């Protein structure tokens, strides 16, 4: 079933799901939604499994024309979504009529928004995932005039679902990232480590889903920046010879030969997704225990929403849409 015609593809809009973990040994990054919490909530709101394929919208300009009556939800960064020129409420399920237009006008907060549709978006699967990974020749960004289809059309109405205000993430509070030091923290001088942990780094405009290039005080190596190439974990911060860190993210290469000073903890990666080039980042060292506790909390946060949706008491409102 047809969902939308793309009137304007926006800056960089892709179909994503939870990605394709398990193929790094074939030189393939997992890719998938950058802000996993926002994306999964969007899916739950429209009655999808949390990992259904949805649109990841970057910054603004995306404009879609509904080709059918649809149920959608928009979450993530606030990119001023609107419906037929009026403000479109985020973090809740919404019914669209055929012929209506959804557009993202301007960035207010965050960097990436998610638009889920009841039934999920279709799109070619590569290695079991619909996540677009442009550099790996797995799908492409949205194109003008492209028709987006629904993977599993459902005609059933669902209860009106809305996320409670207190459960919506606040994206202004995102610029201190917690890190686990290493694995090559012993390849930097003490001064280098101090520089890294005490400085603000500006996200360069050449940043994308592969990685964020950071500008700021250079980090001093002890004995050169090269290592024998080895695997790279998501969230690794590598420091090449010029001393400027690069934060490696969702579509990054899976191996490389530069020293890595630290690794952003898993629980903070969703927040990285909402950091826009031009903004500053700082790093704070934490223990593994702290990182794992934070990850458990993240999981519980999503489980609470899952339960609310299952119990259908998100808002106390039982209207059907």
């Amino acid at each position: 079933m047809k969902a939308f015609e793309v009137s304007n593809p926006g800056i960089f809009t892709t179909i994503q799901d939870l990605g394709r973990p398990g193929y790094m040994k074939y030189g393939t990054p997992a890719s998938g939604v950058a802000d996993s919490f926002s994306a999964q909530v969007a899916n739950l709101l429209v009655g999808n499994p949390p990992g259904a394929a949805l649109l990841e919208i970057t910054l603004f300009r995306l404009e879609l024309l509904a080709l059918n009556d649809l149920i959608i939800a928009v979450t993530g960064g606030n990119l001023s979504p609107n419906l037929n020129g009026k403000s479109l409420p985020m973090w809740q399920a919404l019914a669209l009529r055929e012929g209506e237009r959804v557009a993202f006008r301007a960035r207010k907060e965050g960097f990436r928004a998610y638009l889920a549709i009841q039934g999920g978006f279709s799109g070619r699967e590569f290695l079991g995932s619909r996540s677009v990974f442009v550099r790996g020749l797995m799908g492409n960004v949205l194109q003008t005039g492209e028709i987006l289809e629904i993977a599993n059309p459902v005609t059933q109405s669902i209860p009106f679902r809305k996320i409670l205000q207190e459960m919506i993430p606040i994206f202004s509070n995102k610029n201190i990232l917690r890190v686990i030091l290493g694995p090559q923290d012993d390849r930097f001088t003490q001064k280098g480590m101090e520089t890294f942990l005490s400085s603000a780094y500006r996200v360069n405009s050449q940043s994308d889903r592969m990685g964020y290039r950071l500008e700021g005080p250079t980090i001093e190596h002890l004995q050169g920046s090269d290592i024998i190439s080895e695997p790279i974990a998501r969230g690794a911060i590598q420091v090449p010879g010029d001393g400027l860190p690069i934060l490696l993210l969702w579509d990054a290469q899976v191996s490389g030969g530069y020293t890595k000073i630290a690794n952003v903890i898993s629980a903070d990666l969703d927040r990285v997704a909402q950091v826009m080039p031009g903004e500053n980042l700082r790093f704070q060292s934490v223990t593994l225990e702290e990182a794992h506790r934070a990850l458990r909390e993240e999981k519980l946060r999503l489980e609470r929403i899952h339960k609310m949706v299952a119990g259908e008491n998100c808002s106390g409102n039982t209207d059907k849409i």
Partner: protein
Amino acid sequence: MPDGPKIRPSGDSAVLVEFENRIDPEVNRSVRSLALAIESEALPGIKEVLPAYRALMVVYDPLEIKYRPLEKKIYFWIKKAKNIDLPPGRFFRLPTVYGALHGPDLQRVAETTHLSPEKVIQMFSETRFMVYFIGFICGLAYLGGLPESLRVPRLATPRTLVPAGSVGLAGGQANAISTDQPSGFNYIGRTFVNLYTPHLFPPVPFLSGDEIQFIPVAEEEAMKAKGKLAMDFL
């Protein structure tokens, strides 16, 4: 090895097991044996096992298995891996056209190494390169075994686009680049065999431990491999 491999965290969901710090077939065998020992047990909570030259990464879900027990398990596997026989690698013979349009750096490699272009081709094409591991992006195979006399530095300025299948060398390494991409390697030839198939599983034909030889053929012959899979050249 005096102290044995080191284990350290690489973020909160991966650990790195480090063997001797050199590119060496024996060290890499230890890495691959350990990978096999871990994979054969399929412990819940272990998500990926990634062999590299001299390090192995184990990606885990910290909500399923904690760091300390995992570390203990890995020490156990390191012992167990010593008795593992690795399956033999496969041997690929890829038709390759050398020089001219398809090998823009052949002449310079010859000048740098003080060898004739013919000698460079002969030495390179007689080498059975070992696949140490697959990584980077689009399933790039990291190859070792380049003869010492073919050691040349990387280009000072990397090319912005090198066509898929280009066969090249730099430092002590060689590669056959799997998709069109930027690279600082010296390219001396090209194979038209398809080295990356994102719509198929596995997306890359090689595994660590496999061997590859780049057999010199005429351009016409090389072109016949267009669209064929590497499996056709075992």
